[in-house]
């Protein structure tokens, strides 16, 4: 009886203790997570470019294409400025045509839907690091790609080589990282030029005879069995540099590289590239020759693309502010 009494008392006390005097209902209307007014405002504030991005990046790929500068998306050690609006429009269309649609063409749409980085952030200026080196693009953990120096794009004359140097090589490079992080490549690759990796000194070439120090040229890298100087930093970079450089260059560029590399360098490059090629084909079903064919063809199509918004887009949006 005493036990029951105690238990009863306990439960009453517990009940009293857990009760509360708050008669307020949870305020779903003004939740910070679903602030209807803010959402309505955001929707109303969308311009035609925003709607184009919704239809071409967000809906099909769940990619947020951020052309408006956001400082929390940026590295605060750099002084940066926003991207120009018209140049952002052009770049969004070029990236879709030359990069996204090239993969779609070769691997089908589900491939990119699964692996594409979820944020593409544009920055108008270059990012200069402490040594004065210009950073062209960065990718963070496969989640975000930042493209710098967008304001340098000339809308009157779209220069494919500039796009390749600044953007596409970087995008293919970073995307290839995402792929090998999902499924690793044959470690035989890392052993082929095992002694050639020099870490962060990749851009420095020391003359073996005089000991003098220069910037490392492409040719010096080729002769050492690497497709670029940066490929010499370490094996994963080497691996993705193979993909990025193969698909953005013509066969004659590649042949010239092998020729300049000399017999020894060319043999090393080819040995490694065979692994890269087979990896992409067997692991992801992507034939790099077909991808390259698509990328190069699409590059030449850029000059025929309409890189502007439809006429009415430049007018001020007429949506009224939803109250």
């Amino acid at each position, binding site marked *: 009886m005493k036990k029951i009494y*105690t*238990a009863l*008392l*306990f439960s*009453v*006390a*517990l009940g*009293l*203790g*857990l*009760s*509360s*005097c*708050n008669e*307020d209902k949870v*305020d779903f209307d*003004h*939740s*910070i997570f679903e*602030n209807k*007014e*803010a959402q309505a*405002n955001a929707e109303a*504030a969308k*311009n035609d470019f925003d709607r184009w991005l919704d239809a071409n990046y967000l809906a099909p790929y769940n990619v947020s294409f951020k*052309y*408006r*500068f*956001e*400082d929390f998306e940026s590295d605060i050690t*750099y*002084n*940066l*400025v*926003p*991207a*120009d*609006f018209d*140049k*952002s429009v052009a770049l969004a269309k070029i990236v879709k045509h030359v990069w996204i649609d090239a993969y779609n063409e070769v691997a089908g749409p589900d491939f990119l839907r699964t692996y594409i980085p979820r944020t593409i952030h544009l920055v*108008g*200026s*270059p*990012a*200069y*690091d*402490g040594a*004065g080196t*210009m950073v062209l693009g960065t990718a963070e953990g496969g989640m975000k790609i930042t493209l710098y120096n967008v*304001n340098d794009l000339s809308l009157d004359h779209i220069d494919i080589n500039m796009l390749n140097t600044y953007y596409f090589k970087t995008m293919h490079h970073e995307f290839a990282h995402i792929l090998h992080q999902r499924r690793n490549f044959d470690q035989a690759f890392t052993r082929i030029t095992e002694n050639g990796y020099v870490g962060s000194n990749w851009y420095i070439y020391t003359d073996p005879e005089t000991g003098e120090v220069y910037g490392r040229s492409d040719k010096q890298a080729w002769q050492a069995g690497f497709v670029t100087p940066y490929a010499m930093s370490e094996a994963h970079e080497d691996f993705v540099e193979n993909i990025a450089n193969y698909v953005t260059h013509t066969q004659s560029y590649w042949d010239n590289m092998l020729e300049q590399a000399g017999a020894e360098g060319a043999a090393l490059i080819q040995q490694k590239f065979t692994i890269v090629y087979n990896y992409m084909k067997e692991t992801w079903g992507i034939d790099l020759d077909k991808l390259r064919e698509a990328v190069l063809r699409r590059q030449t199509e850029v000059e025929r693309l309409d890189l502007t918004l439809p006429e009415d887009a430049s007018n*001020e*949006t007429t949506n009224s*502010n939803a109250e």
Partner: protein
Amino acid sequence: MLGLMFAIAGIGLQSCLFEEDDNFEQSAATRLTEDVNNYMELLQSAPNGWLMEYYIGPDYALGGIPVLCRFTKDKVEMATTLPFGGSVPGQKYSSLYTVKSEKSTSLSFDTYNPIIHYLASPGIADEYNPNATYGGDYEFVLRSGDKDKIVLEGKKYANTMVLTRLGDDVNWAEYIKKANVVSEQAFRDVYNLVVDGKVVGQFKRFNWVLTYTPSTGGESVEMPFFYTDEGLKLRIPIQVDGMEAVNFRWNVRTMTFNCSDAGAEKVSIVSSFPEDAHLYYDFEGTYKLTATKPYFNWDTYETERWDDPVSLTVRIEADSINYSYNMVEVNPAESPDDANFLHKPIPVFYGQEDGQLYIMPTPLAYDYDWDYYPMALCLVYPGTWDGEYVEFSAADIRAEAFLKGNITSESPFTLTFKGMAKVVDEYTGEEHIVPSYGFALMSYEDDSYESTMGHRRWFNHVKLERIDKE
């Protein structure tokens, strides 16, 4: 027993905390959204936009510039006085902006606009440190706002910038043009602070910062300012004799910024010049020009004299203010001798460093009615072998040469022109610095000025004596 303890503890620990009144009627999220909406509305409420006092660099280091900006629903238009990366002063540039709720409500210009982003761009300010910028901000905390005034604070450099509502009648292009005229005309970088006619301190100007040092000694104070369409506005008032002066109106005739604030009209910022300097407008007026010219005898085909006298009445008229004048003959038709008159306006220059008049070699405006050949003004200097005879070469128009109007008398105001020319010997290629006393109007074969055809007018030992004033 344990249960009882729990029970008592349970009763004791319950609370009615939620009965406390809310500090605010609405949730934080709602209030933040409202703040954003209010600022959006306020920014858009000025149909002719706002004047933004845009201050540059950490701690206002470079001073300020006026930036005009007008906000519509999703765009902002801006214009300013400086050319930024190829932008045209006074022209409107449009881009997007966002008012958003972060740590505080903030205003961000988030697509590129040269007007607000150039000074924040890397790769321009310092070739040895490409990450450096001029210290411009383009993201701001919205500190306060009412119908006529919004106060911003730069996120990176923390400078306070004020937006003042522009009247509907303010023409943007005019505003910017006038502010640039003030900036150009107020070319001195040393000024005196004058209160009621008495110098009480000195300013040194660097960019758009005046560094003030009181005449009595004491510490210097940096006073950032920006040029307005009327004159200049200090960031914070200067306090003298119980007066507060912020807004100043420019007077180019006196080269003075006069305070336009009620009660502080006696405060002026006056351009400081070297002692014997004159202001630009001091030289405007009517003068008697006397000079000598060669006399050519058409019978003997010889120059008989080099000192044939010339006398004419000329007027010095303002042309490009603080830079140049035109010297024109008052009544060319009344000139006693056809060879005397000036033929066309002679450019005369104002030396901004020393406040003196200069005549320099210059091509002259081409006028087909009068001249069959292009003309230029060259300086006259003694020849190397025959008295005052000098053979002009085509290079004389490009020679480093000047005549300075030395003030030889203040009453009547008299200028005697003397100078020098750097002459290259045609045969030896040697350079000689020779004295120069006058000028000649030369004809050239064509407007490349490569080949001379001789002089049309010749004025040596030039003297100007003022005749229109006491």
